[in-house]
């Protein structure tokens, strides 16, 4: 049963390595915007420190949203998705493998890059650990939730806008508690509460998203 999972995980990582340019897109976007903020808003560390938690989290969200659109798109166009759906392997496991591959090439590097951006936005020291932990767990939740939207809109010609409309409301709680945890730590409180909520959201989406996605993919194929 795990054969399908490892096969698709390896395949998607291999595909990602073959398209390194596309792979770097969300990261470059993340980096560019955060470089622009000090130039456009103000270079003063006090002011930047105030908005840093929010800005970093919003950019992580947008970078995920931008890249999740293509999760099933190319597989749908070249018939791979059809092969996955009719294969005897459980579709939810295949979906989970695809989402994991997506997170490994977007969410994880984004998280690893975030301390550097924290320095650029003069994030106070207390915020670093909560930021890394909330992004690590939170981006996984964002990938999982985004996959549902990607599965629902895969058969539409211009699904990008619809995808954002479907997914953004579901992203709100993750954003609120993710950025909230960093903000609380910066303000001198314990970030544990919001961090636990982010963890719970991620657990919930891990539980539901693969099934929702496989259902949505089957519906999309009927269209």
């Amino acid at each position, binding site marked *: 049963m795990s*054969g*399908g999972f490892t*096969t*698709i995980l*390896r*395949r998607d990582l*291999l*595909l990602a390595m*073959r*398209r390194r340019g596309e792979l770097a897109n969300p990261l470059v976007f993340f980096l560019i915007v955060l470089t622009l903020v000090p130039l456009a808003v103000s270079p003063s560390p006090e002011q930047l420190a105030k908005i840093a938690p929010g800005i970093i989290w919003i950019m992580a969200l947008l970078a995920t949203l931008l890249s999740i659109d293509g999760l099933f798109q*190319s597989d749908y*166009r*070249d*018939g*791979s*998705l*059809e*092969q*996955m*759906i*009719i*294969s*005897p*392997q459980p579709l939810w496991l295949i979906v989970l493998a695809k989402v994991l591959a997506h997170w490994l090439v977007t969410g994880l590097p984004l998280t690893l890059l975030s301390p550097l951006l924290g320095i650029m936005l003069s994030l106070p020291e207390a915020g670093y650990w909560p930021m890394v932990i909330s992004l690590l767990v939170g981006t996984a939740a964002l990938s999982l939730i985004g996959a549902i939207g990607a599965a629902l809109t895969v058969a539409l010609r211009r699904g990008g806008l619809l995808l954002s409309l479907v997914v953004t409301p579901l992203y709100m709680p993750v954003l609120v508690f993710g950025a909230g945890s960093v903000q609380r730590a910066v303000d001198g409180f314990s970030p544990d509460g919001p961090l636990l909520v982010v963890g719970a959201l991620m657990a919930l989406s891990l539980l539901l998203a693969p099934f929702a996605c496989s259902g949505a993919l*089957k519906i999309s*194929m*009927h269209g």
Partner: protein
Amino acid sequence: MTSTPLLQLSDISFERDDRLLFSAVNASVAAGDILQVSGDNGSGKTTLLKVIIGTLAPQSGDCLWRGTPVHQCALEYASELLYIGHQPGIKSTLTPEENLCWLQRLSLAEKSSHTIADALGKVGLVGYEDVPCHSLSAGQQRRVALARLYLSTVKLWILDEPFTAIDRQGVTQLEQCMQQHVSEGGAVILTTHQPLSIDGVKTLHLGAGHSKGEQ
């Protein structure tokens, strides 16, 4: 073995956008059969194949696999099925070898005695194992997908226009491959506009809103 055919289509009809594509399609495919689905462009050949593999649901009618409706034996059916569609699921950035590798691993059927290198040799792609598929010609890409036939050990092959972009010698080879498969107790359902030079091919003709089968 009982005399139950492998796959039976009973009274299948399909409607899209309030237009009846086909209705009351009846056919049965037993071990050793090749069924050619024919019909004009737009008569629903591909749709019928998608109904058979289960990605499209018919308005009415049933597909029976060894006498059981396919939705009741989905796993068993899926493990005995090989489908190569118009878009055969070949990733253009992967090499032929990598493509065949992932497609083969999705299957639960027992491994064939052929290796991937053997299969690529059979379809005339020796020396192209490590070339990304986007730099192969249309016919060669088609051959990569068709190499799956040599790797498969499943009973039922469903091929949508397998001869597209294949040269004459390739067609002959493919016909031999299908004959070999049915002589070993397999079955093939295919759509093609080309007359097949195989004896005993059953045909199913899809026409405007109706269908008729003939031997």
